């Protein structure tokens, strides 16, 4: 008899795990709330550190999922814990009796308008990292800028928005995007306002060096307020903490590097299952070292950013190990 | 301080120093400040140890002072050096020993530059030919005079009359060694023991019975720096450098300082007087200063030379307390008598420094 596995979330984690599990011979059902698969990856243009096209990667990943029953534009309506399985009712009316459940619900981008002083949604030139990717994809327009700024840590490392943690990917994304902007608008001055530059992965430092060589200016100071000049440009204020002087600069585009927050729809599912979340809002794993894919419920597993900010490679590793854990669990049963 | 750790580093920086047959060039500054040192060097190497050290009155300055003060361009300095090398070649020598650290640094710098840019060497050879009609050859071995004394340290120890030991207590003397910056900081591989823990002076002190003390600011420059001391208003900077070194070595209670550079002994010695006069502070015992010596002076003392023949009366900081410690007899009455037996005049007594 084939076991049913329900994967919630059709982003990179859900796709990767489903393609492995379907090859192992399981009956895999994938639920995605958006109309298309891919999660944030589908909205991204290129990936750090080497500028891989997100679209190509996604295409390759989707191709591998042959045999997976995918329900897009579908949400989980209710979940019940049965003796050794989960009874899940989907918003399209289908009921699934799942022997194992994988939460790959990922993250939401921090709502940048919450940082009132940056004026997202108020000043025209203030956009988010996601907007900029859309611009690179050709779905969003910005005026040709003379100067562009990137604000790192928007909604991350900030107690005022109840997220004191680092979102892990914004630094590398910002540097990647800054390079991309500089390539698109060669004449533009590009500034990155950072608190600490966390370029921890393989090749990330190379990306940083590349950005420096392209003439991107890194300013160690967090932007504190943005105002509009009489010409409608953006007056950005920060402290250059390395020279101990407040600085201001007039920019045309300011990109806010919105951080990672727990996914709201993921939270709804977890809420029905009474899953515990940590103070940061992300799900708590069974332990912090050996069972990162397991939850406190038998047969319920995690992969990807549902348990905290992760890079794409991290997420894919987690998806693979989650598949292994699920296989172990079902075989033992 | 883990002594074995230093030994490991010393092992990595072994410098090949030929035993004999050198072409010797003097130091501008040392000739004026410590003329007896170079005389002693020649006396020890030639007469006491029987080495072949050749020197000629035709050699000049290396151009270092002018070069480091931005008064002449590098090419000029290189041409002067090429002329020195041409003299060496002319007198049939292949090993080059210089008395000055600045020169030593400049020779190293020049040789390295020529190695990297052979076309520049060609150009300098051309310059030299045009100006002096001379041809030069690069020395096979380039050493500093202190390298040689280091090489001979055990031979000197074998002939020594005194040791760097306090005869009253039997304890080894506590010696601060100070290496000229241009000795190995520019090219660590060119110095005995490298740049971080140079062994050249340490080796001498150990061979002669003393104990080296290692203090936090040992790496720091003495403050000589051409640009600083040449202009009066900048001398505060120079003074502050020396001050910092003395503040740092003071808690270790050193008995003496040994140096291998022209400027260092001069500044370490004279600035003690200025600090005493302006700050009222002295660093030696009972209001004395810490006596500062060149390595030749120390070698001379160990071998039993008369202190006044070594020119120790020209020091600002009195050397008598150290001589007493080492048990070296001296005649105070002869301190200010010249070679000809006539009084050379006594300096004014400092207010503060004994």
């Amino acid at each position, binding site marked *: 008899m084939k076991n049913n596995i329900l994967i919630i979330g059709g982003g990179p984690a859900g796709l990767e795990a489903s393609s492995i599990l379907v090859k192992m011979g399981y009956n895999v059902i994938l639920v995605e709330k958006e109309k298309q698969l891919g999660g944030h990856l589908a909205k991204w243009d290129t990936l750090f550190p080497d500028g891989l096209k997100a679209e190509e990667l996604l295409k390759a990943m989707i191709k591998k999922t042959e045999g997976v029953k995918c329900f897009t534009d579908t949400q989980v309506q209710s979940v019940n814990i049965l003796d050794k399985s989960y009874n899940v009712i989907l918003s399209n009316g289908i009921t699934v009796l799942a022997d194992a459940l994988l939460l790959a619900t990922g993250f939401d981008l921090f709502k940048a308008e919450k940082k009132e*002083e940056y004026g997202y949604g108020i000043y025209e030139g203030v956009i988010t990292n996601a907007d900029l990717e859309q611009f690179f994809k050709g779905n969003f327009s910005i005026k040709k800028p003379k100067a562009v700024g990137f604000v790192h840590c928007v909604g991350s490392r900030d107690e005022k928005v109840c997220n004191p943690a680092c979102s892990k990917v914004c630094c590398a994304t910002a540097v990647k995007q800054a390079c991309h902007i500089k390539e698109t608008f060669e004449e533009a001055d590009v500034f990155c306002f950072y608190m600490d530059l966390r370029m921890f992965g393989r090749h990330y430092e190379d990306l940083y060096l590349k950005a420096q060589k392209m003439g991107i200016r890194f300013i160690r100071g967090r932007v504190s*307020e943005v105002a509009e000049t009489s010409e409608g440009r953006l007056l950005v*204020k920060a*402290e250059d*903490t390395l020279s101990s002087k*407040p600085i201001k600069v007039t920019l045309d585009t300011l990109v806010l590097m919105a951080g990672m927050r727990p996914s709201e729809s993921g939270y709804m599912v977890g809420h029905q299952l009474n899953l515990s979340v940590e103070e940061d809002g992300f799900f708590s794993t069974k332990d912090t070292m050996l069972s990162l894919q397991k939850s406190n419920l038998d047969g319920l597993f995690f992969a990807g950013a549902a348990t905290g900010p992760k890079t794409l490679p991290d997420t894919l590793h987690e998806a693979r190990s989650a598949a292994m854990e699920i296989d172990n669990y079902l075989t033992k049963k | 301080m883990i002594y074995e750790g230093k030994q490991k580093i010393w092992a990595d920086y072994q410098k090949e120093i030929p035993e004999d047959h050198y072409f010797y060039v003097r130091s501008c500054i040392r000739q004026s400040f410590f003329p007896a040192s170079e005389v002693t060097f020649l006396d020890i190497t030639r007469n006491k140890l029987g080495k072949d050290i050749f020197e000629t009155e035709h050699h000049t300055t290396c151009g270092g002072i002018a070069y480091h003060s931005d008064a002449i361009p590098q090419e000029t300095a290189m041409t002067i050096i090429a002329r020195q090398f041409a003299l060496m070649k002319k007198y049939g020598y292949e090993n080059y020993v210089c008395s000055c650290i600045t020169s030593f640094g400049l020779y190293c710098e020049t040789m390295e530059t020529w190695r990297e840019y052979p076309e520049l060497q060609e150009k300098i050879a051309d310059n030299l030919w045009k100006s002096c009609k001379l041809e030069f050859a690069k020395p096979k071995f380039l050493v500093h005079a202190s390298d040689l004394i280091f090489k001979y340290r055990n031979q000197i120890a074998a002939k020594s009359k005194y040791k760097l030991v306090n005869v009253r207590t039997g304890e080894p003397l506590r010696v601060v060694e100070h290496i000229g910056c241009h000795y190995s900081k520019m090219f660590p591989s060119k110095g005995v023991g490298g740049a971080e823990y140079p062994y050249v002076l340490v080796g001498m002190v150990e061979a002669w019975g003393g104990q080296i003390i290692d203090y936090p600011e040992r790496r720091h420059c003495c403050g000589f720096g051409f640009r600083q001391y040449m202009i009066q208003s900048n001398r505060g900077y120079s003074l502050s450098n020396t001050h910092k070194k003395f503040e740092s070595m003071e808690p270790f209670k050193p008995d003496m300082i040994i140096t291998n550079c022209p400027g260092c002994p001069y500044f370490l010695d004279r600035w003690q007087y200025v600090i005493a006069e*302006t700050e009222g502070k002295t660093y030696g015992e009972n209001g004395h200063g810490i006596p500062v010596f060149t390595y030749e002076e120390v070698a001379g003392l160990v071998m039993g030379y008369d202190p006044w023949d070594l020119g120790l009366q020209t020091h600002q900081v009195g050397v008598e307390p150290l001589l007493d410690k080492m048990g070296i007899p001296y005649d105070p009455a002869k301190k200010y008598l010249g070679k000809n037996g006539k009084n050379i005049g006594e300096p004014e007594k400092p207010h503060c420094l004994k």
Partner: protein
Amino acid sequence: MIEFGFKLSPSSRINLDLRDKASFSKLVEIEPDALKCMACGSCTASCSAGVFEETSLRSALLSLQNGDKEKALKLLSHCMFCGKCTMVCPRGINTRHLILSINKIYQVR
């Protein structure tokens, strides 16, 4: 004393051994937020008084930790207490009380 035409220049190095640990721990006692700064510079950048004269809580805190209380007090002496820095601080530091406490502890009367 002889006038040489030059004199010792004071060391520009920060000597952490000489810093006033007791006063700083007193400060931490009355305002524990003194330890929370991550030096992002938001306070300095948004400072109302900073428009007129160099004013920086971030820098002042650093100066205190480095034992330079004169500089710290100078950096805060123009503070108008408006509270903008409290609003923008990502670490949620009670900046106004911190400034008040620094003044209370370090101002000699």
